């Protein structure tokens, strides 16, 4: 069991932001996936608990709770959009006064990390995208795999079912992981986001259409070669929600314009290769940073 370091707080443009930091040297910043307002699962900085401490022996490892997720404040003026999440992530990097960082984004966080880089080249030294169906062109299969969990939303059983179906090996979904998700779900401010996204329908009225519009633009920009940073795509081979072909397609988009483009596949891994193969993922990240020094 790996613990995150003690959490800290930072004011990011009026948003009280929770973050975690350990180690020294080249800064590596991790952005997890998911979005605010989901009632059957909930991501937080804990997603990276198997990576932050081990990597902090070699780099300055940082993660933070995204806008409206984990313990960070919900968006102002009900701006429940990916664009607001991206702006907050970039503002966090600026508020931390970091030199250009190695940005690592998973799933929806892979989209956010890429868009932060495209909008703020000065903040980013390299990009790592992990199993991001949100960023990859093609058909996402989350709703096919995870439609209507057989347990009531917000229960431990439901949370466990969702992450087991994301994973190759259901045994990687530990009690500790479920505990962390349950703790986020129990926060009053998180429940507020669940109401906004679900009951007030901001998910379908605002978040998804805005993301679709911005994704078109983001893919166009990648296709035009605007990223202009070393990039690696890491993929769990057995992810049913973002299948391997989508990783290949995404890698090919980047590789067209970037000499330092790499594609890495981990066998017997679902959506979370850094949780199913933490030692190997951490070794790959450490050596990536060294190779760009």
């Amino acid at each position, binding site marked *: 069991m790996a613990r995150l370091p003690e959490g800290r707080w930072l004011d990011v443009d009026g948003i009280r932001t929770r973050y975690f930091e350990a180690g020294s040297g080249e800064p590596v910043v991790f952005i997890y996936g998911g979005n605010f307002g989901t009632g059957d699962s909930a991501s937080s900085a804990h997603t990276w608990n198997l990576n932050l401490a081990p990597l902090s022996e070699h780099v300055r490892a940082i993660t933070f709770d995204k806008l409206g997720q984990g313990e960070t404040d919900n968006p102002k003026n009900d701006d429940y959009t990916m664009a607001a999440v991206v702006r907050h992530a970039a503002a966090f990097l600026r508020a931390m006064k970091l030199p250009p960082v190695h940005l690592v984004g998973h799933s929806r966080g892979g989209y956010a990390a890429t868009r932060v880089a495209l909008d703020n080249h000065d903040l980013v030294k390299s990009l790592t995208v992990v199993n991001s169906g949100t960023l990859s062109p093609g058909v996402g299969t989350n709703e096919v795999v995870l439609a209507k969990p057989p347990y009531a939303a917000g229960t431990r059983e439901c949370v466990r079912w969702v992450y087991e179906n994301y994973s190759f090996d259901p045994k990687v979904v530990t009690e500790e992981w479920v505990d962390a998700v349950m703790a986020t779900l129990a926060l009053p401010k998180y429940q507020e986001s669940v109401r906004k996204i679900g009951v007030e329908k901001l998910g379908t009225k605002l978040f998804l259409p805005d993301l679709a519009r911005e994704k078109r633009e983001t893919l166009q920009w990648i296709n035009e070669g605007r990223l202009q940073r070393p990039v690696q795509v890491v993929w769990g081979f057995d992810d049913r929600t973002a299948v391997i072909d989508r990783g290949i397609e995404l890698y090919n988009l980047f590789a067209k314009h970037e*000499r*330092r*483009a*790499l594609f890495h596949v981990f*066998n017997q891994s679902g959506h979370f290769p850094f949780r199913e193969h933490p030692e190997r993922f951490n*070794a*790959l990240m*450490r*050596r990536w940073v060294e190779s760009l020094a």
Partner: protein
Amino acid sequence: MIVFIHGGVPGVTPYCSGPHIWGSVLQQFSNATTVDVAGQTVDAMTQSVRKAIEGKGRCHLVGHDLGGLIALGLAIEAPQLVSAVTAVASVAASPTGDGVGDFTFAYPPKPLWSRESQRWALERASYSHHHVDGKLLDACVAAAAKQQPMTPETYAEQFVPSLMKAKARFYEVCRSEGIKVPCQVIWGSHDPLATFDHGLWLFRGIAQRQRVAQFHVINRTGSLPFREEPAAFHQVVSAFNGAGVRS
């Protein structure tokens, strides 16, 4: 220790491979060594490498092309000698399928194995010609003076059957008990000798029965990714070498 095993069949491969083919990337590893591959069949070549690594403790074998198949064969035959395998641009180990003819090396300038002919071959095997420098060509010419080319008869009567036999054994183990030693595949994005799918299918084969198998693609490289992108190659090999091994 990391042992680098070169590929190539003397007299058949139009450039002359050998320990020199790895080039400057070896200096990035603190514990690298190379071996000379000798023999007229894959089995004989495998035994020559086995002899060279015996007594060195368990080694991470990094094999290029045919050297990759030899490394995988040793992982099956003598897992007590092997801690990990990295197969690099290993067209020899990847499925042959009923592929279309590859014309990359179809019409080499004569005389074969001359400096100019080897330059032609190395450039054609690569994404970019920049790594084909005087130092490499000198080493290839020196190697050509020492190596005995395989005759067409030996190639057809002995080598090719031994290659098919070694591949069949490899795929059989992949499908049944699995390879007990952690393996990864590194592929050049622009390898003119094989497609992306060849690399992915080599990985899929190993992945059937091995939890920790990995597949990596290095952009803007051909058949010699360790020469064209040494930093990326070092990242992938050293990461696999360093991580805790639980097959």
